[in-house]
């Protein structure tokens, strides 16, 4: 009998379908890999399995789940834990000032009866520290960890923290299924290898493992079965021996919808507009570790890759928003680093992925948002009266009205605050600001994240228009490979903070998929 069966699981968030009829079966002791791009629905599926409140608060889900043949409907993570499901999250949930034992046993401490406890209830029983330490030691030994259980978490290497998290889960006696969400993302290579060994030995002990990762080679080396999600649909479920790395990559990326792609053009003769030399950017969670690139004048240069690999860091680094080293050269002239003003003065502008934080003044009007950059940097919309330069309110409104019409921004008036606009209209306001600024180079990150289809098309069409008709250079960073392919002239894939390669947008799915996972297509083929 299967340990876990998930049948026809569907889920939508306010009308937006994120999972469609997904099935997942896991046998006892099986290591099962779950892969998919960002936004494929992996986390939602796990949230359903783990009974996270976010699922119930948004109207629950469709489909059924069974554990050992019994129907399983977790109302909270407590229910899931009681059913023998443990989860190790991507972000560590450990208390730094506590010892390993205290963290492993948190809220499940072994206690000895005391008089106080008898009178006032179990919460006042004395901690049985010896048993706690014993148990922790056993759990750590199962993980082949040579570390004293009384050490504090603070100052431990990241790899060790990961193991402490797992130790906590396996210390729960009834553990049958352990969910690991991108466990190796934070580990160094040697740690990752050790980690995979541990997983295998856990599996031999009869604990099933559901392993979410984007490192395909890891899945291939340890897991027994694999499920691939794409756009909320299960596209592949297969025994590992029946499938190759290349097929996995193809299934993960795939082309779900045929988008109208632009006619390709040859820009190899165009002059270099922006050059990056050995750029390092210290952006938390998106660190860039030495990237060199040449971006041609007038092209749309796509930057892709998985989340956390550093693709977002590149534009932020060029713009000087995070500490950057290396060289940024625009039209042969070296730019001062770490200075947004320098880049703006040189006619480079950036529309951030953090639209609400960096892209908008939420409590200010649409018209002021649109005019701000041009007014601050290029002294547009100003008139001189006596000693000072004052805002030309009329000019600002006129410009905003023009932009609202051109970009079809849905709003009550140009005086409306941007906070209440929908995501798509907010993005249009940001684009209107960039258009008003009239840059040579437009850096834009996640241009279509969180916006509806109609707005998406308009945003992408606008980028194409700017590049093809106005000759603007556009550097577009996106997690969605499909849209990169649709509009880019070339696509750079960033993996682990480095440039994995620059590809033609018509490149085969498996090549791009493997590049995103940090593998080289040719090598994989030769190995196979």
């Amino acid at each position, binding site marked *: 009998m299967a340990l876990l069966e998930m049948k026809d699981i569907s889920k939508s968030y306010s009308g937006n379908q994120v999972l469609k009829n997904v099935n997942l079966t896991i046998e006892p002791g099986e290591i099962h890999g779950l892969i998919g791009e960002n936004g494929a629905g992996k986390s939602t599926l796990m949230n359903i399995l783990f009974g996270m409140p976010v699922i119930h608060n948004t109207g629950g889900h469709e489909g059924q789940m069974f554990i050992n043949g019994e129907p399983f409907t977790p109302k909270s993570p407590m229910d899931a834990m009681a059913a023998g499901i443990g989860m190790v999250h991507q972000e560590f949930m450990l208390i730094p000032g506590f010892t390993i034992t205290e963290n492993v046993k948190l809220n499940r401490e072994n206690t000895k009866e005391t008089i106080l406890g008898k009178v006032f209830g179990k919460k006042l029983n004395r901690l049985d520290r010896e048993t706690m330490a014993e148990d922790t030691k056993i759990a750590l030994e199962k993980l082949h960890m040579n570390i004293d259980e009384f050490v504090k978490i603070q100052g431990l290497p990241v790899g060790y923290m990961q193991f402490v998290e797992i130790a906590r889960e396996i210390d729960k006696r009834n553990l049958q299924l352990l969910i690991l969400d991108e466990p190796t993302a934070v580990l160094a290579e040697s740690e990752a290898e050790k980690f995979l060994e541990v997983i295998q030995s856990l599996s031999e002990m009869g604990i099933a493992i559901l392993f979410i990762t984007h490192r395909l080679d890891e899945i291939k080396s340890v897991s027994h079965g694999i499920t691939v999600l794409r756009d909320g649909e299960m596209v592949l479920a297969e025994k590992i021996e029946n499938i190759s790395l290349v097929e996995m990559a193809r299934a993960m990326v795939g082309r779900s919808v045929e988008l109208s792609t632009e006619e390709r053009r040859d820009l190899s003769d165009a002059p270099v507009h922006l050059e990056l030399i050995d750029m390092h950017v210290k952006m938390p969670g998106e660190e860039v570790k030495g990237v060199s690139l040449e971006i041609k004048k007038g092209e749309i240069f796509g930057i892709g890759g998985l989340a956390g690999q550093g693709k977002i860091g590149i534009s932020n680094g060029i713009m000087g928003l995070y500490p950057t080293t290396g060289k940024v050269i625009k039209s042969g002239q070296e730019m001062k680093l770490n200075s*947004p003003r320098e880049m703006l003065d040189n006619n480079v502008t950036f529309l951030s992925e953090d639209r609400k934080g960096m892209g908008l*003044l939420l409590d200010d009007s649409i018209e002021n948002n649109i005019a701000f950059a041009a007014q601050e*940097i290029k*002294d547009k919309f100003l008139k001189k009266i006596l000693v*000072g330069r*004052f805002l030309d*309110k009329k000019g600002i409104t006129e410009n905003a009205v023009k932009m609202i019409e051109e970009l079809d921004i849905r709003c009550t008036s140009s005086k409306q605050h941007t906070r209440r606009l929908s995501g798509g209209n907010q993005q249009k306001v940001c684009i209107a600001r960039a258009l008003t600024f009239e840059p040579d180079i437009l850096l834009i990150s996640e241009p279509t994240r969180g916006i509806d289809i109609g707005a998406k098309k308009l945003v992408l069409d606008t980028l194409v228009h700017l590049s093809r008709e106005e000759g603007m250079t556009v550097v577009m960073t996106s997690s969605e490979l499909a849209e990169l392919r649709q509009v880019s002239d070339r696509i750079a894939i960033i993996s682990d903070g480095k440039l994995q390669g620059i590809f033609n947008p018509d490149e085969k799915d498996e090549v791009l998929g493997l590049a995103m996972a940090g593998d080289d297509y040719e090598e994989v083929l030769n190995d196979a």
Partner: protein
Amino acid sequence: MTLKTLYQKIGFPRLIITVFFIALLIGAVVLNIPLAGLWSSIFVRFGMNAILVLAMVPGIRAGIGINFNLALGIVLGLLGAILSFEFGFQGATGFLVANAIALPLAAIAGYLYGHMLNRVKGDEMTVSNYIGLSIVSFMCIVWIILPLTNRELIWPMGGKGLRVTISMENSFGEFLNNLWAFPKGATGASSFVFPTGMIVYFALWAAIVWAFNRSKAGSAMSAAGASELFATSNGVNVNRYRILGTMISTILAAAGIITYAQGFGFLQLYRAPLYMSMPAAASILIGGATLKDARIIHVIIGTFLFQGLLVVALPVINVVSGGDMAEIVRVIVSNGIILYALTRGGEEA
């Protein structure tokens, strides 16, 4: 406009205070308290306090929140007034000299204080309270050791150190109150006098702040205050504009206390400056400002309501209760409204 949108536009605190204010006015009529005198007091007190309330505007717009450290500008304003007094200037000259000494000092102090606030981003309102306490304590020493000789400034016996309260009768006391006041020759507590000079003087400062808000620098400053990320990514030097906002706020505090003191007729030294920030903060919040947004109209509405409440409450409540209730009302209203605004964060207060 439906009743609901009207209510939302006015807001709960303003509604309560307006209703209370009107109730007190009705009470005054019922108790036969002469309204003419009350109205002149309201205008005088409005003129005295409005510039101090105005000092809150640049602080909030630049993102340092409510400037609880008005005391910094205030002590320098007092210093300017005292020196002007010491040199024997009177009337208009005295007033101008006091400002000429105080405002540049306030600009320098505001600049240094702004640098300091840039190091404690996020905790400005807490820190500003403690800086206020420290500055006032420090100035207590200065008031004692200043080597001044004017007999009206220093203690009559012993002859060392400044008095706690200095009458400005022989300096520029009530200079603005009486400037262009009409109707001419009206005297006594029960007749109506409009303090034109004082209101015009406030209008002058308000116009300057209003114009600044509409300038390129003012626009950049509000962006810096509203979203540091947005401002930085659009090439605004956020720290510089925060310093600018702090400077303007401190300068306005200095100009504000000189106006206040001349209207009151006394210079209050030592611990008195500590008690000026709270009513000013309460006033602008009553006027509709939030911790993130403040405009001139908030200053005008807020100061009018807050001072109006105090002026009318004093005689009415004292007649009804017989005790000194007006002071209690002032404390409850000012602290209550600040607490309300702080719990609401950046939302509409």
